[in-house]
């Protein structure tokens, strides 16, 4: 796998990043919206984040997708399965551009990425790292069925004050849907 596979959902298209994605994503990353992601990010850090999560597909076979609204091609945000060196395991994360809130787009895109992780990537579980206080992201994780995993290892240098670990399980690994 060298590039993100294109995945379509009812309303969204997940696809590999292109250069035109940078401006709208940087607009999120350089704003207060990125507070819980360790931002606001400088231009340099935004570039490195987006480029690295794109290049990650070559290195690891997973990485980030641009999330487009299929109907009009608008970039609504990003969903990614990433494992930079300081993460003990792969994390699914998400980011929504301003103006697209309240539609359930993040949940729809992340559910599609999770399904891809279980069926194509062969993962049996993924985590989401949520900053305490980020209730919107915690709600998305819970809506996706993730459970808080207090025993999970944290990213290098982080403590439970910095990060809550939610864990998503593949359907057949918890005796669920496919049993």
């Amino acid at each position, binding site marked *: 796998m060298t*590039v993100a596979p294109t995945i379509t959902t009812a309303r969204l298209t997940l696809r590999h990043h292109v250069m035109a994605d940078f401006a709208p994503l940087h607009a999120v990353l350089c704003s207060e919206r990125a507070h819980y992601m360790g931002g606001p990010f400088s231009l340099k850090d935004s570039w*490195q984040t987006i*480029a690295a999560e794109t290049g*990650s597909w*070559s290195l690891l076979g997973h990485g980030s997708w641009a999330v487009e609204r299929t109907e009009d091609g608008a970039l609504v945000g990003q969903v990614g399965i990433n494992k930079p060196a300081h993460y003990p395991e792969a994390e699914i994360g998400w980011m929504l551009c301003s103006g697209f809130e309240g539609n359930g787009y993040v949940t729809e895109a992340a559910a599609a990425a999770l399904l891809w992780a279980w069926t194509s990537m062969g993962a049996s579980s993924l985590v989401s790292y949520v900053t305490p206080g980020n209730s919107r992201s915690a709600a998305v994780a819970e809506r996706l069925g993730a459970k808080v995993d207090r025993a999970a290892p944290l990213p290098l240098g982080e403590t439970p004050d910095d990060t809550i670990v939610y864990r998503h399980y593949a359907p057949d690994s918890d005796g669920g849907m496919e049993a």
Partner: protein
Amino acid sequence: MSFHQIDPILAVPAAADALRLTENYTLRPILHHWMGEIHAGRCAARAKGCNMNNERKPYPRLVSERLLLVSPADPEFDANAAFLNPGAPRFIDAAEDPDSLWWSIATIIGHWHLHGYGLFAVVERGTGTAVGLVGPWFPKGWPEPELSWHLMEPGRGKGYASEAAQCVLDWLFSDAGWETIVSYVPEENDASIALARRVGARPERPVSFRLQPAPNIRAWRHMPPPRVSGPQAAQGFLH
């Protein structure tokens, strides 16, 4: 010419003949691929040897006298083995920090995905070892693309940086259709200034842009060689 792309049929046996199969894992998939094509007597390097990038264009592979230059995003190049796995030669200032090293390599590969060009992995043909990264670099915040070079310890002191830089310049100007590129060189970096001169760059004014990599930077401009004496003159720098 001081480079050729691994695309025309004649280039493949010539390049592969000079490459020794070694125990080095970095190049093995590419080497096996070439050798397989040669044994089969086919010209498939053109048809399937170059893998497609996101824009469905083949990733270029360049060969100079002692070096192979390959995109680290090329699916047949093992960038983990070359740059990230324990024991791989370290480069950049991130040497001791695996986290920033991962981000640097992932960013360099992502640059190829997003721009369709970027830093080539510089592979020593004699050993199959990746010894550096050289190529056009245009992150957000740069005023224009930069020809950038990084040599890791095992590759230093052998003239590889200028050989690789010249190879990339020849490709940019003759094959990729570029008309100019700069190198941003710190005024106190004598080695890089000598290298810029050696590959024919000319000094311009000191530059200042918000995200410049260091203080006291001067732009050194590379231009295509004059048509008449171009490639021959360039090759002169290789020896």
